[in-house]
């Protein structure tokens, strides 16, 4: 019984790491650019397809393809910010929400058009591998995904706290006007923020490829988790998003294990509504860290 519990927690934790990459992206964009990116999941989807095609055409391992998918999505992020998001920044909630929402719709349907709805999978030598530690099983692919996700999160933290550009981003997140007065170019900072956020989503996609299928709607599921984690962890708070994502992964896993296979979603929504009801500012309150 305890072993089952522990196993469920472990499984949840590992997938939570992937959720974290997606939710950190959402919260980063919200913290810096102050808009909610409803299309974040689709960039994860793009990352998956990039890795899929690199694997099936050139035999490149998905984990290696990170080196390609991340820069690609960074560039996409810069373009999205510069040409789309920038135009609606001054317009208020409605256009902003609907812009990223429309973008999401566009990307899903383009994927449907170009790649069809078929599931695409990649088999790697370690896709089916598990290792034992005590009574617990660790799926190697998931373990690696978790490890790299944590690594990337750590690198992001270093970037935000250790580099000038990163500090500029945090400054812009806290107070845009003052940041501008200090000579920080908001557009540049926003481009980097969106680029980084999308790169993280793309990374999540590549990390998922060894053990998860790619298909046009795949992003929707992950973005749902991400959103709940972002709200739970407080919009704009990166550490909060990370911790909340891990919690979400565990909660979902426990729900599936002990309540029922189809109850993952309900657990998630209930958590969201409870959070909004009891602590609308999330568990951590405050600005991007």
């Amino acid at each position: 019984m305890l072993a089952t519990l522990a196993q469920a927690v472990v499984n949840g934790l590992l997938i939570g790491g992937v959720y974290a990459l997606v939710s950190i992206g959402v919260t980063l964009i919200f913290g810096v650019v102050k808009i909610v990116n409803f299309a974040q999941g689709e960039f994860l989807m793009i990352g998956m397809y990039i890795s899929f095609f690199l694997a099936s055409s050139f035999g490149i391992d998905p984990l290696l393809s990170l080196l390609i998918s991340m820069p690609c999505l960074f560039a996409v992020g810069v373009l999205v910010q510069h040409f789309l998001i920038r135009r609606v920044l001054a317009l208020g909630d409605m256009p902003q929400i609907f812009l990223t929402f429309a973008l999401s719709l566009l990307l899903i349907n383009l994927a449907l058009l170009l790649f069809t709805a078929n599931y695409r999978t990649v088999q790697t030598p370690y896709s089916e591998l598990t290792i034992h530690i005590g009574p617990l099983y660790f799926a190697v692919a998931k373990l690696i995904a978790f490890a790299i996700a944590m690594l990337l999160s750590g690198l992001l933290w270093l970037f935000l706290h250790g580099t000038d550009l990163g500090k500029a981003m945090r400054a812009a997140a806290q107070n845009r006007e003052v940041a501008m007065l200090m000579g920080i170019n908001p557009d540049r900072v926003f481009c980097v923020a969106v680029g980084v956020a999308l790169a993280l989503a793309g990374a999540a996609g590549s990390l998922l490829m060894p053990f998860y299928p790619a298909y046009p709607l795949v992003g929707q599921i992950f973005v749902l988790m991400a959103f709940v984690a972002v709200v739970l962890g407080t919009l704009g708070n990166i550490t909060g998003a990370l911790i909340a994502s891990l919690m979400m992964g565990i909660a979902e896993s426990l729900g599936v294990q002990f309540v029922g296979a189809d109850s993952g979603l309900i657990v998630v929504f209930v958590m969201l509504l409870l959070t909004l009801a009891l602590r609308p500012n999330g568990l951590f309150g405050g600005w991007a860290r």
Partner: protein
Amino acid sequence: MTQSKVGRPWLWVAALVAVALALPLISSPFALDIFIRVLLFAFIGVAWNLMGGYAKQLSLGHAAFFGLGAYTSTILLIRFGISPWIGMLAGGVVAMLASLPIGALCFRLRGPYFAIATIATAQVLMLLFLKFRDFAWGAEGTTLPNLGDAPLMMQFDSKSAYYYVALALLALGLAITYSIEHSWMGFYLVAVGEDEDAAEAVGVDTTKIKRHIYLISAFLTALAGTFYVEYIYFIDPNTVFSFNISVEAALVSIVGGVGTLWGPVVGTVLLEATSALLQSWFGSGHGGVQLTVYSLILIGVILWRPNGLIGLFSDLYERLALSGSSRAKEAPLDG
């Protein structure tokens, strides 16, 4: 005040009404079906617009009320043999009651939080109804009994009858919107939509206003839900609580013109026309083409005319009708 209160606009409206009433006489069943969809979604859009367009409470969960209306009337019909006309009203009341706790939860949230919360509530309802087998048929849903031509049970032999019911619903929605727009409530709604803090400073009870408009919006949306299932003789959670309905409810106003009387109608006509055109060009087989183009259009509208396309039309109208001050058109609320 401009002189446009008498003369030209009424002529246009009268012409529109005449055309609307005559349409079924000259349409094929296929076309009629499209028109009914247009009327229905315009109506849902009008209901959404009261909250989302005027008061800027961006709900993406209106399907919750659509579904509640649909299920209430269907349960009353199938389990208790009650006429859907009554069921429709009952559904409206249920939706109103639901809007109270949902509003209490969501109105404390601003901007994107609010939207996310509304999405969540609609999804939770869908999930609940997917599980409820006992009195709501669960995931498979149910077909509605075919009672032949039974006007008292909201079932008609001729499609035209459904058309006129949908038209009446839309007319109701527009009438309510018009009377609100021209009363203190309309001013208060726009004030809340523009700046809640400033509204409070001049004595507007923002919480009460939001609660009231939510009641109205939920009620109307629920009516649409009942009509829809009566029209298609089928109900299941995935259909009536569908996120697509929530999206379309908001979309038609955004494309057509938020916070305006005719915006939702304009938006629905445009979107449905586009949709129909795309279907005839590409067929519904090519998964994704239709929505791809749809979303490109949407992005275009958002970038180019974020307040909706109705501004375009009123400018056009001015140039054609050569009427008075254009300012009056741009400020939808003019004393």
